[in-house]
């Protein structure tokens, strides 16, 4: 998570006249939007290409359809009386109908472009094999159904991680060299371990040995009817996945912010503010946090995007019914519309964020001008 980047040097500009501001900003907006849109188009097209592996997936799906149709017709007693020729024709017709339903009768190149244009207009279409829990095959409904669990899990863990690490890092940068500071530095390599790995250990300790928390899932089965019991059950199931997501980036995140704040707090103007006798709260807020704001905002924006992708493996380990696990299941079922749907939404969110960040920089940093060179 929290990747602290250096401030982009290209954004610093010299003074220019006010008259050209509108023209400059609008030209910048148009060019930037076009470039970002092209990026999204190419990215999504590549994903579509990979998702059907140049037609290889078609072969698998056609084989599966032939198998299924032949089996079902062979198994049905009423068809057994038919003439072999008639039955063969019936099988071929059924296969053709099924292939048409999924769209396998259209050449792959055209189908790829159809997927692409549908995706770009956010017409996500129907899933091939998967259904939502309410029984719908609409990709939109499947994704929407899995969104709340992911938002809950990722939202709680990532927001907690973000705010707690910034606050703790500020605190540590003030007490540089203290025992706590050294402890955080020593513990920061623990973030080399991914969250699902901590998840396995946490399951081992709290579910298998102590038997106080559940192994996985989102609520007890059957779900409690009473809203209070329901939320308590949810909370119990939420504890371990959230804890593992937080644990795996906690110390590195604090360490990164701390180092970042320390670099900024060695600037002359901070020394000057301290020399003036300003209270340390004011020094932190006005002289350390303010210039680091663009970076903090960038990290926050990227964090919001990761909420959408979910945590595929952590969700799989904890059997959490979120988007990440859905995507993994969709790949296993060759369900291209779901893969593409999830990718396009991520791509749009990312492009939008990148676009908006330029304006937010200009708002928080008076040295930055939109579209300035």
């Amino acid at each position, binding site marked *: 998570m929290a990747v602290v980047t250096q401030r982009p040097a290209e954004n610093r500009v010299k003074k220019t006249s006010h008259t050209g501001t509108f023209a400059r900003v609008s030209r910048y907006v148009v060019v930037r939007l076009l470039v*970002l849109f092209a990026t999204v188009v190419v990215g999504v097209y590549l994903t579509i290409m990979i998702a059907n592996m140049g037609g290889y997936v078609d072969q698998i799906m056609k084989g599966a359809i032939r198998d299924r149709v032949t089996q079902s017709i062979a198994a049905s007693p009423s068809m057994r009386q038919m003439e072999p020729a008639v039955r063969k024709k019936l099988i071929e017709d059924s296969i053709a109908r099924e292939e048409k339903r999924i769209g396998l009768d259209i050449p792959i190149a055209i189908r790829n472009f159809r997927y692409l244009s549908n995706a770009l207009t956010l017409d996500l279409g129907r899933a091939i094999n998967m259904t939502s829990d309410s029984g719908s095959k609409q990709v939109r409904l499947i994704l929407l159904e899995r969104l709340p669990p992911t938002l809950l899990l990722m939202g709680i863990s990532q927001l907690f991680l973000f705010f707690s690490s910034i606050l703790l890092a500020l605190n540590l940068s003030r007490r540089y060299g203290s025992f706590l500071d050294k402890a955080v530095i020593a513990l920061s390599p623990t973030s*080399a*371990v991914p969250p699902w*790995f901590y998840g396995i250990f946490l399951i081992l300790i709290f579910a298998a040995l102590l038997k106080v928390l559940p192994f996985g899932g989102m609520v007890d089965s059957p779900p409690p009817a009473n809203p209070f019991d329901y939320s308590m059950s949810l909370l119990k199931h939420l504890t371990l996945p959230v804890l593992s997501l937080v644990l795996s980036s906690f110390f590195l995140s604090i360490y990164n912010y701390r180092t970042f704040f320390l670099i900024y707090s060695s600037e002359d103007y901070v020394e000057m503010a301290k020399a003036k006798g300003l209270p340390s709260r004011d020094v932190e807020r006005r002289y350390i946090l303010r210039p680091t704001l663009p970076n903090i905002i960038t990290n926050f924006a990227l964090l919001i995007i990761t909420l959408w992708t979910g945590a595929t493996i952590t969700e799989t380990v904890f059997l959490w019914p979120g988007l990440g696990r859905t995507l993994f299941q969709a790949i296993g079922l060759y369900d291209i519309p779901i893969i593409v749907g999830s*990718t396009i939404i*991520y791509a749009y969110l990312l492009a939008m964020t990148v676009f908006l960040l330029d304006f937010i920089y200009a708002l928080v940093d008076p040295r930055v001008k939109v579209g300035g060179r």
Partner: protein
Amino acid sequence: MPWLTHASKWVAGNMNSLKNSFQNLLYYPSAILGMLVVFLLVFTAIYAMIKIPYRDAIRLWRGGEEVWYQNPKFAPPAWINFFSSKKYAESFAVRTSDGTMTKEVTPGAEGTSTMSSSYTFDFSYDYYPQELILYLSSTYEEKQPFISVEWLTPDGRKIRIVNLAVSQKQTYRFSQDQKLKTKLRTDDVIPALFSDPETGRLIKGTYQLLITGAAFEPDSDINVEFVSHGQVYGLAGTDQARRDLIVPLLWGTPVALAFGLLASLGTSVLTMVIAAVGTWYGGWIDELIQRITEINLVLPFLSILIMIGTFYSRSIWVILGATILLSIFTGAIKGYRSIFFQVKESLYIEAARAYGASNPRIVFLYLIPRMIPLLIPGLVSAVPAFVFLEASLALLGLGDPVLPTWGKIIEDANANGALYRGYYYWILEPATLLMVTGLGFAMLGFALDRIFNPRLRDV
């Protein structure tokens, strides 16, 4: 070639400062610990490859029931007996063919012969073994040899187990014998064999398995293998397919190191070279690299790897290639780019241009060597991520189908509900190794980062 000496001098100078930096490592305890871990891992990897050659490793990992039949299922490692006051029965396998089980043949009249074989063992555990099995084999032309099996307990009882005619290859499982169950008046044969029939308490002491046989042809012969599946096995225990986990644990080391180091090296070197080329030539090349980086940002990294694993190939080398390709054009390329822009303006580059150095020469001999101090910490720090990536993919069922790896053990354990059923050793062993590897490289990388990036050294 005068330029070569010049370049080598320059590189040598650079190497000297590198050497000093590495000496600084000794001031960081975490770096020493990290180096120790890396050294131990490399040693283990070499040991594994020498001790169990590749073909043997694959045979032991994928061989089939005839390779693993001597091992118990789901058995924790034998050393847990050190930490437990109640002892678990260990496994053993003895056979007449190599003399671990005695065999005496006495010739009789008209080409017949009688054979007697026995195995005496001390049983001083608190838990019964999982299973006792006899693997019988015989040679004969028409008339099958005949054996009878007896069981002698420490309190002097003699239990007749079975009488049977031996075919060419035959397996006799004590716990599956209905007649024996009826005779012992129990469903669990194994506990009954090891306990007092009155009290049902386990009896420790010396047990003996006695086999007497009769063959009815001159060249007829009987061979016996007696296998006891204990509750514990070997140094690492076994899994659901009776495989000895020491094989994937040992062999997982070179695989993890190779995957982590190659992916990390490939990614960082290629990223740096591409960033250097882009910065130096500028223009459309730089623009193209920037656009590819942005497109790569849109691509879902893990999903694409899962798709390649599902649709195309699960071979670790294909996954490695895809990982490197997808990891080149990331944020790191922007970081290198901004530094290359500064280096590009420095005086020694200008000097190189002035004497007419060619473009590739400047890029590869002047720009890139300058970045090695930055490359090394990044390279080491990136290793854990790739090692864990392999394990993550294996956990999703996309591990290499042939190679034994740590991730595959975790996947098998997870699929068989190891945590739920209490087989903790099964997950803890590979997990500990993964954790130690990850932390070792991460600690070393952290220390290197602080040494090579002076800006971090003070804070």
